[in-house]
């Protein structure tokens, strides 16, 4: 069936005709066969009946009279006929009275007729006679029938062959049409010079010619549109390429162009030229003025024959000749900065002098990165320029930071952020009243990473808040089953993060630890973000929590702010406690802090209590709590 569906049209037509014709011919032949055979057999039967009727009455009389010779005589006359193949006569008891069988009954068909013999002039049966008549005529008739059938079959096969040829010739125009259309492309003019007398094909060819004309017209239109589009695309491509490689403000080549130009040589020497305090110019005079200024700077750099690139907001770069030595470059940079400093730049009616910082990478395989590192170094050192020095290992530091950042992220996923708790001992009773929560990262081998190694990096990678939440969660759940107070350090980013504050409130409510928790805030944080910190303290105190100012005394301590923030503890900076037994000045400062605390009614905590001597001193000074390796190392609870 699948083959028929996929077959050629000519094959389908042929198969359909052959199938239909065969069924029709088969029906006709079978009908004819049965009609001929039955008619012939009936004729022979009639003959046999006639034959029997010639003798049946006399035989019946002979049988009735019991005249056997007469019976034999009568029936023998029949046996002389070639067509009679057998005769059998039996009386009413079934006894065979006469039997004849022809010597060679070779006929395919024989007709057998039987008649009942009656007593003369009555309906009383007295015997049965059976006559088998030759079917020779039937055989002959059927032979001629089969002969005729064979002739018809041969003629049919020949006719089918001719039909195939005829169908193929009829459908040839379709094939020719398909071949002509096979490689047709829009706009091409195909000549359909196909000879066919069939009206249908002429209609198809006319339709294709009309379609071809229509396609040609459309093709011409599309070609015209395409030409216009191509032109537009070329122009746009040029424009985009220009925009891609050029800064629209200054018309200088941009960072991408610089990166591409740096690929011509494996190592390059470049300088990055950054305008100092340009943000303030923008903020003060507006962006338009800033842009104008940038244009003037770009123009000046071009005047200096530097072939500059604009690689950022206020950053320009230039590729320096590779044969220059470090000293020559240093000299050129100093000269360039001097000239830049002397140059007058104008905004409106105002004249400005600007300063710049330069970072240089010499013969570097990563010139942009290295020059940027040098630029940062120059800024950090408050110098006008710096040259990248691979021996300083800045790049390795970056790699370490990246690795640590990944490690922190992985530790958060694998729950390897853990907390240790350092005891805070009551100086008066000597008992542990509180613990300070200290965060660690547990390596896969079980060793611990101290907070100084990862917290600064976490603060710059936005992972710090997640660490804070983890610490609060662990500490609160740990102390929900204990009686001591416990403290947790918070940074300004934590306090400014409303999500963390909400989380803190939720965890405190869940664990019921609000009245025993102490939040430690750096003194400097309270000064820089006073309003936010005050608001946070107020919310936490509403819950029952207490607040400690950490590292108090390390900077320019502002007592007024402490008063306003309404804190509960002052944690005296460890740098003051560490050498209190040897440094009288530290002792004086500490005494001053203690006096202040006592006067406003808040308690104090001494950090870095590392010896019995220090412990004795802080206790004598009246510090409420002491914390350090001497009184207790950080531990897991």
């Amino acid at each position: 069936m699948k083959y028929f569906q996929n077959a050629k049209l000519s094959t389908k037509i042929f198969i359909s005709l052959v199938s239909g014709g065969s069924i029709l011919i088969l029906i006709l032949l079978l009908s004819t066969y049965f009609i001929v055979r039955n008619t012939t057999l009936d004729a022979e039967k009639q003959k046999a009946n006639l034959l029997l009727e010639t003798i049946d009455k006399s035989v019946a009389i002979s049988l009735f009279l019991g005249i056997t010779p007469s019976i034999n005589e009568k029936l023998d006359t029949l046996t002389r006929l070639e067509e009679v193949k057998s005769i059998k006569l039996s009386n009413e008891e079934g006894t065979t009275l006469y039997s004849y069988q022809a010597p060679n009954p070779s006929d395919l068909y024989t007709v057998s007729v039987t008649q009942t013999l009656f007593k003369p002039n009555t309906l009383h049966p007295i015997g049965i006679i059976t006559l088998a008549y030759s079917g020779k005529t039937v055989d002959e008739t059927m032979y001629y029938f089969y002969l005729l059938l064979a002739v018809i079959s041969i003629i049919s096969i020949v006719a089918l062959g001719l039909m195939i040829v005829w169908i193929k010739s009829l459908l040839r125009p379709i094939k020719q049409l398909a071949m002509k259309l096979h490689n047709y492309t829009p706009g091409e003019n195909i000549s359909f010079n196909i000879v066919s007398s069939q009206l249908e094909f002429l209609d198809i060819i006319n339709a294709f010619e009309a379609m071809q004309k229509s396609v040609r017209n459309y093709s011409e239109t599309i070609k015209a549109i395409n030409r216009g589009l191509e032109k537009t695309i070329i122009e746009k491509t040029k424009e985009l390429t220009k925009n891609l490689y050029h800064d629209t403000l200054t018309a200088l080549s941009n960072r991408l162009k610089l990166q591409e130009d740096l690929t011509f040589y494996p190592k390059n020497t470049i300088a990055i030229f950054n305008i100092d305090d340009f943000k303030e110019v923008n903020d003060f005079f507006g962006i338009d003025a800033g842009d104008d200024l940038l244009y003037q700077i770009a123009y000046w750099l071009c005047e200096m024959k530097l072939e500059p690139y604009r690689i950022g907001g206020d950053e320009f770069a230039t590729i320096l000749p590779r044969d220059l030595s470090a000293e020559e470059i240093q000299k050129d940079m100093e000269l360039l900065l001097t000239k830049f400093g002397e140059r007058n730049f104008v905004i409106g009616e105002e004249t400005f002098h600007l300063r710049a910082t330069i970072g240089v990478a010499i013969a570097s395989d990563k010139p942009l990165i290295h020059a940027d590192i040098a630029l940062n170094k120059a800024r950090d050192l408050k110098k006008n320029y710096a040259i990248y020095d691979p021996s300083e290992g800045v790049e390795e530091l970056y790699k370490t930071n990246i690795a640590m950042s990944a490690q922190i992220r992985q530790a958060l996923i694998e729950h390897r952020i853990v907390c240790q708790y350092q005891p805070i001992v009551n100086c008066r009773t000597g008992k542990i009243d509180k613990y300070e929560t200290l965060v660690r990262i547990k390596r896969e081998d079980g060793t611990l990473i101290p907070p100084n190694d990862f917290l600064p990096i976490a603060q710059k990678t936005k992972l710090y808040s997640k660490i804070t939440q983890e610490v609060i969660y662990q500490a609160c759940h740990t102390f929900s089953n204990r009686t001591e107070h416990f403290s947790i350090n918070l940074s300004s980013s934590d306090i400014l993060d409303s999500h963390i504050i909400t989380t803190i409130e939720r965890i405190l409510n869940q664990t019921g630890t609000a009245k025993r928790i102490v939040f430690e805030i750096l003194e400097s944080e309270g000064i820089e973000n006073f309003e936010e910190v005050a608001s946070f303290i107020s919310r936490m105190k509403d819950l029952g929590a207490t607040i400690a100012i950490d590292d108090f005394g390390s900077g320019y301590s502002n007592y007024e702010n402490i008063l306003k923030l309404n804190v509960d503890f002052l944690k005296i900076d460890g740098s003051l406690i560490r050498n209190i037994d040897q440094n009288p000045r530290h002792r004086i400062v500490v005494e001053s802090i203690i006096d202040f605390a006592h006067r406003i009614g808040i308690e104090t905590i001494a950090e870095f209590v590392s010896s019995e001597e220090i412990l004795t001193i802080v206790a004598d000074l009246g510090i409420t709590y002491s914390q350090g390796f001497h009184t207790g190392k950080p531990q897991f609870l």
Partner: protein
Amino acid sequence: MFRLLIFAFFFAPFLLAENSLLLDTQIKMIPKIMALDNNINQYNDTSTAMLGIVYDDGRSKFATSVAEKINLYYKGKVGSLKFTAIAIHIDELSARRDLSFVYLLDASQSSILQAITISKEKKIPSFVYNIADLSLGALGSISIERSTIITLNKNTLKSGNYHFNDALYQMARWTE
């Protein structure tokens, strides 16, 4: 008693009188039946078959008239068979050797039986006027019902080894 004997003497022949229609029918058909006898073929060209009209005492004239009537009607030939009908008294029957067929007119049973016995001995087919006499062993008789009926005695036919044309057999009614 005497009167009775006188009556019998004068009227006895009249008591045996045949039905004229039946008689006519029989005398017209008897020669034809005789012609169907296969054993008479020997007379076809060279000889003349003899049809004996057998009568009993006192019926000579009547028998002769019957014979003449047959001869007159058939003019000595039925089909291809030449024949002559003659009247023969029962007593003469045994002496005759030229008879091919006998037709027994109505007679007493004893006479009929005698004639039948003789004809059987001589293998001569015998037809009787009165169908009732078939029971005495005659070969056949002709009667009239709705149509003319030929009745043959199967036993006589078989015992007498008579052979007639099948046509006769087919149209005949049979008795045993």
